[in-house]
């Protein structure tokens, strides 16, 4: 925070001098003492230059510190560098999240796809047996049909026991496949922390650069120009959809909007 105090002090020294010398300058010009007036101007210039050098120096130092803090590799793309840059590290971590979620989703889908036919096979078999059982209860069954049912029931019960076991194991594997949430959650939290840190550093860099702009009188054009969002490319999921008017928050909203368009 001492930096900030220094800054404001520097600025006020230059500004104070500018203020006090402005009227002095006017008096000198009015009285026709041009050489003295020029001397005042060059003094003002010297103070301004000095403040500018200090600000640029401070800006450069902060920039270097930020770069060092995030281990950004300035000497080429990390080839031979022992230390992974923080940004590279974050990229790696996010790729890990994509891998983990992809693996978990595929594992779950595999197990579901394996279990679904088992369930429908069991249902089909049970439906047939149910029909036969009804026949038996209504005493409509012939002896050889009964022998068949007897055998079939035996096979079915045996299969049911094995297949239920299989489905149970698949479900328990699906349960385990959700462990990615814990791991990816931790990774994402770390990366979120990094992003916040980078933002804070950038904000302080922008503030410093602002001081330089102030002294040099630089005005940036077009920065405030509204960025045209490219809806054509797509933006992915919207955050805080419930609080926004330009975004639908449910399928019902979509249906309402489409029906208002005559769908």
């Amino acid at each position, binding site marked *: 925070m001492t930096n900030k105090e220094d800054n404001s002090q520097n600025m006020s020294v230059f500004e104070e001098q500018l203020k006090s010398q402005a009227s002095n300058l006017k008096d000198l010009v009015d009285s026709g003492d041009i050489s003295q007036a020029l001397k005042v101007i060059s003094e003002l210039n010297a103070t301004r230059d000095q403040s500018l050098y200090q600000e640029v120096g401070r800006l450069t130092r902060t920039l270097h510190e930020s770069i060092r803090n995030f281990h950004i590799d300035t000497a080429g793309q990390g080839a031979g560098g022992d230390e992974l840059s923080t940004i590279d590290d974050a990229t790696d971590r996010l790729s890990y999240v994509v891998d983990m979620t*992809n693996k978990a*989703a*595929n594992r779950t*889908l595999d197990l*579901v*796809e394996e279990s679904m036919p088992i369930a429908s096979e069991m249902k089909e078999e049970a439906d047939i047996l149910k029909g036969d059982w009804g026949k038996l209860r209504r005493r409509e069954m012939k002896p050889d049909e009964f022998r068949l049912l007897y055998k079939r029931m035996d096979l079915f019960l045996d299969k049911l026991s094995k297949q239920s076991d299989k489905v149970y194991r698949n479900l328990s594997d699906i349960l385990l496949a959700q462990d990615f949430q814990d791991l990816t959650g931790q990774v994402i939290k770390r990366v979120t922390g990094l992003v916040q840190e980078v933002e804070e550093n950038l904000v302080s860099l922008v503030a410093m650069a602002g001081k330089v702009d102030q002294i040099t009188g630089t005005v940036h054009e077009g920065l405030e120009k509204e960025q045209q969002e490219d*809806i*054509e*490319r*797509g*933006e*992915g*999921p*919207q955050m805080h*959809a419930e609080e926004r008017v*330009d*975004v*639908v*928050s*449910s*399928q019902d909203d*979509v249906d309402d*909007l*489409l029906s208002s*368009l005559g*769908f």
Partner: protein
Amino acid sequence: MDKNMKILVVDDFSTMRRIIKNLLRDLGFSNADEADDGNTALPMLQTGKYDFLVTDWNMPGMTGIDLLRAVRADDNLKSLPVLMVTAEAKRDQIVAAAQAGVNGYVVKPFTAAVLKEKIDKIFERIDS
């Protein structure tokens, strides 16, 4: 509605393609192919063997909205029913999709019931 109709599912994420294909199979449609973006999908559609297109919006290469426009601009494909299944939820985008001639719009995350309802609605209109 012909349950044997040929469906093309276009999404850049393979898991989403699998989920949609599974849901379609549950609804009785087991004849579905996959493509990972508009550039891959368009030549497949141009073979003329597809009866229904289910596409995401946000994809690398050709997006879903561009694919939709390309389909509507193609004389052989312009009447192909198109269902958009996407995370894009801006009102402007839904309006743009409607103007481009989409037949249905489902926002992710979605349920099997919503998918069924939209497909039924699309083919009800076409068959009537």
